[in-house]
């Protein structure tokens, strides 16, 4: 199930966006530079790419952001709109609904047989 969910997530999210979400879910609220610090040890990535990916996640309403003012100046703080479980559930729901819309009774028959096993 995890493998298929990963594939489903692949179609809508880039590898960097997935990596960012994996960091956000346990950490909850992070700034752009904090994410950069966490990710640069795992992959070759630029601060600008992370900023772009976060903005895209924000435009897709997967993450939200607030503005904080501190010693370093004004900064965005990003956090996920849903928990990992809720997000995965929404991905599954959207995908299943798409399959049913597209394939109708064929999809329903498959699900019926699959869950009988």
């Amino acid at each position, binding site marked *: 199930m995890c493998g298929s969910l990963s594939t489903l997530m692949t179609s809508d999210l880039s590898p960097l966006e997935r990596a960012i979400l994996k960091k956000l879910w346990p950490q909850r609220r992070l700034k752009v530079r904090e994410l950069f610090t966490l990710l640069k040890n795992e992959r070759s990535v630029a601060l600008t790419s992370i900023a772009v990916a976060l903005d895209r996640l924000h435009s897709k309403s997967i993450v939200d952001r607030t503005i904080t003012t501190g010693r370093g100046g004004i*900064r965005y703080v990003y956090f996920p709109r849903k928990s990992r479980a809720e997000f995965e559930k929404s991905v599954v729901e959207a995908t299943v609904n798409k399959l049913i819309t597209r394939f109708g009774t064929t999809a329903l028959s498959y699900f019926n047989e699959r869950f009988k096993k």
Partner: protein
Amino acid sequence: MELPPITLELLEIAAASWALGILVLYSWKRTSKAWLLYAHLTFLFLPLFVYAARLPCAQPILDGLQAFCAVTLTKVAIYLIPPTILIATLAGYWLFPYLYVRQLRCKEQSSHLISTYATKIGKPLRLFWFDNAQPLAFSLRNTIFMSQGMFELLNHHEREAVLLHELGHIRERSGWKKFSSALTRLFSPLASFSCRETVQQEERRADLFAAQTQGTTKYLKQAKEKVILYYSSASRARLRI
């Protein structure tokens, strides 16, 4: 209705006027003085005004209602062109900063650099921040707008370089020149071919001001590289989906 003939005299006025129009456009290209653009528009429309002034009002649309003569209406429409340009220029140039502040929901920021420079030139300068993840910075009249994206990507020295670049634009009155250039391109087909270099010239002057003030081109160069990298990453990300 018989229109007055286009006489040789009128053609001579048109040729001379348009030649002067091209000359002032050439002068503007060399000197970047915004008033030359408005002089170009004046020379461009002058033959039209001379012709309109000679139009007789001999054919009223409705008997006895001279005021509704088609020719009178045409003359009024032509005479309204310069005040329309003037009002559009003044209203647009003076109102744009206020409109941007409202549209972008900006918040005014304090900056030591801005207040120091404002004291030096004896003019009030303002810095506004707006909520946008893209790195954007621009200036209008005596106001600089900078997006949150700039704060996210650039360090203190790089942001200072960008502010100095925008101050360079304010110093050179680039906003006024760009606005005038856009307005002239709208009305003059001749200007369409010669106004493009304005933007590049103004950018070079602003870069020079920033580099001279900071004593190095390093920070401005770094800032530009980061901004370019941001937008190329954004383009690649859009193409993936």
